[in-house]
């Protein structure tokens, strides 16, 4: 069992050796290959193919692919440096979507195809239906990177997972993008047959794409938030006005401290959700967990932090941060996009609020401490 899941009294969730190894290679790869030139090129319509090739060579897109019975499989905590790294370096590739698709497919006993993969939620509360015979009908909006992916993993709310070919004639794609120019496409399925169908062997996840998708976005938000904070602190320490670095002014310090507090809350909440998600991977199918609650908390905190941090980071940077030339916007445009995706903070707050009101004064604290509200 992974070291990060051993928790003795008073011990914290120290990173596993696998997590540290992944963190090192992510830092090296992204530092070298996600340069301002790559991001500027991406904004001009040039996909980051060379970056993707590097990631494939290091095996990162398939890091969560493992047979159902594999006790040594990498966990969500182990791959968390990848999830956050995509946010911290703003890597313009479907890496995290491919990771999630790989997990869902392999946990349903479906062979994972090569290349970039995207994810779709079907069933209740969506406009997409997966029939018993394995045929898809309906629509799905804001699908990440659909044009860049030949295949998608589809999960419904009944524990079924399918692999579908997005290049078949029964699927039409309407191109779209988020504020950062990342593909967010609308897909229309007209009696599209799936290529494989399986049952998800994972505990207590009713809407896996929706819930894990929100967890992945929360991690990406935290990464981009840390990038904003690092940039703002560095800029405040080097920019001199009135004879001193602006970071020496209390007005700047107080804003950055406030921003750091919100980011810290988002990071801790996201760590807790990653821990739950890792436990779910090792739990018996059918057992319950706190994952849905923990993910809702993480997405609310990360979304709220994004709203505050984009404002403070731009304010501290002044006019230069508003230029195309400065790299701050690579992070802030993604924060404004990702806070909306897989459920905005208002959406997840509503879910939590309904549960809290239902629990009432008698049940709220018990639900909060058990993380099952």
């Amino acid at each position: 069992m992974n070291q990060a899941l051993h928790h003795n009294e008073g011990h914290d969730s120290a990173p596993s050796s696998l997590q540290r190894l992944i963190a090192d290679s992510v830092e090296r790869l992204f530092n070298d290959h996600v340069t301002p030139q790559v991001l500027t090129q991406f904004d001009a319509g040039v996909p980051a193919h060379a970056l993707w090739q590097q990631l494939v060579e290091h095996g990162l897109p398939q890091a969560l692919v493992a047979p159902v019975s594999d006790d040594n499989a990498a966990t969500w905590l182990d791959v968390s440096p990848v999830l956050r790294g995509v946010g911290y370096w703003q890597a313009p590739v479907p890496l995290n979507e491919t990771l999630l698709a790989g997990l869902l497919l392999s946990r349903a006993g479906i062979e994972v195809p090569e290349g970039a993969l995207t994810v779709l939620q079907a069933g209740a509360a969506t406009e997409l239906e997966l029939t018993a015979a394995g045929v898809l009908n309906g629509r799905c909006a804001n699908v990440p990177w659909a044009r860049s992916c030949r295949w998608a993993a589809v999960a419904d709310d009944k524990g079924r997972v399918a692999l579908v070919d997005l290049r078949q004639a029964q699927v039409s794609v309407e191109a779209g993008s988020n504020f950062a120019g990342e593909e967010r496409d609308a897909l229309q399925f007209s009696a599209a047959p799936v290529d494989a169908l399986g049952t998800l062997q994972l505990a207590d996840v009713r809407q896996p794409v929706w819930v894990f998708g929100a967890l992945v976005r929360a991690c990406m938000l935290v990464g981009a938030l840390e990038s904003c904070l690092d940039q703002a602190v560095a800029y405040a320490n080097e920019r001199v006005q009135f004879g001193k670095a602006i970071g020496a002014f209390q007005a700047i310090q107080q804003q950055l401290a406030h921003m750091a507090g919100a980011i810290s809350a988002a990071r801790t909440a996201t760590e807790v959700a990653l821990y739950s998600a890792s436990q779910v991977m090792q739990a018996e199918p059918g057992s319950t967990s706190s994952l849905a609650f923990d993910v809702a908390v993480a997405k609310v905190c990360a979304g709220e932090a994004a709203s505050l941090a984009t404002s403070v980071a731009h304010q501290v940077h002044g006019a230069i941060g508003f230029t195309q030339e400065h790299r701050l916007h690579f992070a802030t445009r993604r924060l404004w996009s990702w806070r909306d995706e897989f459920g905005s903070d208002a959406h997840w707050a509503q879910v939590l609020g309904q549960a809290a009101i239902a629990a009432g004064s008698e049940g709220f604290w018990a639900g909060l401490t058990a993380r099952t509200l």
Partner: protein
Amino acid sequence: MQALDIRPCHLDAKAEALRVEVRRFLAQALKDLPAAERAKNWNGADSAFSRQLGERGWLGMTWPKRYGGHERSALERYVVLEELLAAGAPVNAHWIAERQSGPLLMKFSPEVLAPRLLPAIARGELLFCIGMSEPDVGSDLASVRTRAVKTEGGWVVNGSKVWTTGAQRCDYMVTLLRTGPKEPGNRHGGLSQLLIDLKAPGVTVRPIHNMLGEHDFNEVFLEDVFVADDFLIGQPGDGWKQVGAELALERSGPERYLSCTQLYLEMLDAADAGNPHHTVSLGRVAARYAALRQMSLGVAGMLARGENPATPAALVKDQGALLEQAMPDLAHTLFGDTRTPGSRLDQVMRYLTQTAPSFSLRGGTREILRGIIARGLGLR
């Protein structure tokens, strides 16, 4: 960045089992405590209740047995604290002694004061207050003017302290004062801590009523008060360093985000689950409760491992006060002109709306805390 990374800390089965026990006790002990009293949270004082906790072994839980403690884990203690606060138990009488004075004496007077006084603290019988602020000294603690002058067998103290919570009922005051001048390049030099018996000749305690008319604060006057050598805490001149360690304990606990819990609970009972304005705004608060709880627990884990989480503690307190202070305004937004006068919600809202301004003043102002966080970020 490293300084502000608060990693989650996971409670074990032993701590969770204790939670069940504490809940059962509180359901019984507090069954007649009205919502308006629970709203006082850790400002509510009841010495009989504090002694009951002592009898159950829930004070001084982590201390060695030779000091009257129970040698349980810091996380077990954390569970007891958060259960007491969430239930609105009247814990103020023993709170400061148990939270910071006991640990301070254990660290800096392990052979003299700790064996003598800690067993009574653990029984809930000996109450402490803290003399830091002075009439002209608030956030700028290095400027304290209360002085102790060495004399045969002890010290003679003159000066005054202010905002001293609970001094009217406490036995001892841990007092920050000057035993020497400020040193060149070190404005915190020359400070020391003395333990002053509030019944000693020369001590006068005068009440200061807060804006609700309550008597929590006091002004404490010290005129030629004799303090025996044994009652010096630590070393002369080390006062500032010692206070720093104490402040991490003072700022990091669950009391720094739970003060408005009763108001949140009343709002939940008054809310309409079909109204998106209610569900979204109360849900945002629920998320912040969950995150703050994990952060607070994470800092408790750092303390349990012997780390000094001064910066994370400041951050948790700043975030906690933001959560607490958002609550009265939310109650105003959702129920400002629709609540029933005299209802539980009304009573709790009346009290907490008027108390909330103090939450970002006590235990370090928001500005001081954010200054500490800014230094942690590497801003100079």
